[in-house]
């Protein structure tokens, strides 16, 4: 599949100039960290602002009639009630009720704007083209996507674009930045306040440099992005959610509005509605190791009696927490916060506790 040379975003040269350590991620050459290091970049983002290149994600424009209603046939969120200028987290489901990908859908007035995972672009674009009858599905290749995340994000972005200051969480606007039209959306993947800014590629470096020129803004790589989202309890597609996990198991039913839960009408509705009514056999939970050893993806979770009850799907060191943090699926009857479990790390049982997600309080601009 990935035999092609890795692709580069419009910011590639800037990453190298800034000392970014480049790695292959989903077929893209991306910075995993800069000289500041993952720990420093993580804290920078929690305390000030971090800037991430997320241009590898798929930006898609949907044009045509009745897009909202058509989207509701492939995703279980409400779109017909999504107002212009608003964004919504959602996911495509398969016929078995599993999650094909998670994504952000925005109502941009005369069109819809969609951002999908880099690793799932090849699936999602044809999926939308096939199922959104009469809708033009236009994948955008000539725009960068830059995320500015952290408590100082409003100051950093607001300096270049005053309109950004007036936005609230999950709002999206088109606004001028340094003479070009950009799309700003007040959301992100770190648990912090912040923006994702879609920028025409020929101005991407110039605007990114201007954002980084703010004293409270520094570049951050994929390493910090992962530890930030993990502490914030946000799912990573391919780790925590995939074709074999349902929204009920993944505790994502908040993204399914009441009407959709009741009416169904999306792929896998039979299973998902059954689980909504009766509960699922397993549940995605936070897991806090008691000791210092990080528990990573694939680590087995056992009950104190030694019975296998689940598996870690994401885990590592949480710089803000100051210790290891993890997420994983466990049997629902043993998924209550406070439940003691053991994690089998390199053959040894290490004590841990089920905890409520997120590990750090989300800091959104409501």
């Amino acid at each position, binding site marked *: 599949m990935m035999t092609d040379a890795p692709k580069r975003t419009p910011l590639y040269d800037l990453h190298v100039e800034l000392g970014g350590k480049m790695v292959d991620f989903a077929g893209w050459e991306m910075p995993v960290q800069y000289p500041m290091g993952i*720990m420093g970049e993580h804290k920078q983002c929690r305390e000030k602002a971090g800037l991430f290149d997320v241009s590898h994600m798929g930006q898609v424009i949907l044009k045509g009639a009745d897009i909202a209603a058509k989207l509701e046939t492939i995703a279980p969120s409400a779109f017909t009630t999504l107002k212009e200028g608003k964004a919504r987290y959602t996911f495509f489901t398969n016929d078995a009720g599993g999650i094909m990908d998670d994504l952000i859908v925005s109502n941009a007035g005369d069109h819809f704007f969609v951002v999908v995972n880099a690793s799932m672009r090849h699936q999602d674009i044809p999926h939308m083209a096939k199922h959104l009858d009469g809708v033009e599905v236009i994948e955008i290749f000539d725009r960068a996507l830059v995320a500015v995340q952290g408590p100082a994000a409003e100051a950093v972005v607001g300096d270049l674009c005053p309109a950004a200051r007036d936005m609230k969480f999950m709002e999206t606007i088109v606004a001028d930045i340094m003479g070009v039209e950009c799309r700003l959306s007040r959301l992100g993947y770190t648990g912090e306040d912040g923006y994702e800014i879609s920028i025409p590629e020929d101005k991407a470096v110039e605007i990114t440099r201007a954002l980084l020129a703010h004293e409270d803004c520094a570049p951050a790589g994929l390493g910090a992005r992962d530890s930030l989202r993990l502490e914030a309890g946000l799912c990573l597609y391919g780790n925590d959610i995939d074709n074999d996990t349902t929204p009920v198991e993944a505790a994502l039913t908040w993204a399914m509005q009441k009407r959709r839960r009741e009416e169904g009408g999306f792929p896998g509705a039979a299973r998902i509605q059954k689980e909504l009514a009766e509960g699922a056999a397993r549940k995605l939970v936070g897991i806090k190791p008691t000791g*210092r050893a*990080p528990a990573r993806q694939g680590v087995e979770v056992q009950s104190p009696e030694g019975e296998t009850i689940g598996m870690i799907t994401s885990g590592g*060191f949480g710089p803000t927490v100051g210790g290891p943090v993890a997420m994983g699926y466990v049997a629902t009857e043993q998924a209550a916060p406070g439940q003691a479990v053991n994690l089998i790390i390199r053959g040894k049982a290490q004590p841990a506790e089920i905890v409520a997600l997120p590990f750090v309080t989300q800091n959104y601009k409501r």
Partner: protein
Amino acid sequence: MTTYYSEEHEWITVEGETATLGITQHAADQLGEIVFCEQKEVGDTFDKAEEIGVIESVKAASEIYAPLDGEVIEANPALEENPGALNENPEGEAWIYKIKLTDAAQLEDLMDLDGYKAFIG
């Protein structure tokens, strides 16, 4: 007192029949910020190339492989509370083990400092 280096990026400083073992600064730099070090216990014996510990950085877990046969006579207790010392001073205070050598002849398979420098380029 002579210091030897392995291709697995360990250093080993020999004094008579005992030696101190750790990872090189080069290895620490490659691993990134270290958050955990799992060590064997005093009295554990091991063979050359056997896994004798794990170092976890924010990025990933990496095994430590024994550069020769031996027995653990001390595991640095400071690393449990302060694994980050492995980034700061891995060739000094952040040593990992003191060991008893089983087969001193195996030292001949290791590199000296110049050899190691050439090895890491």
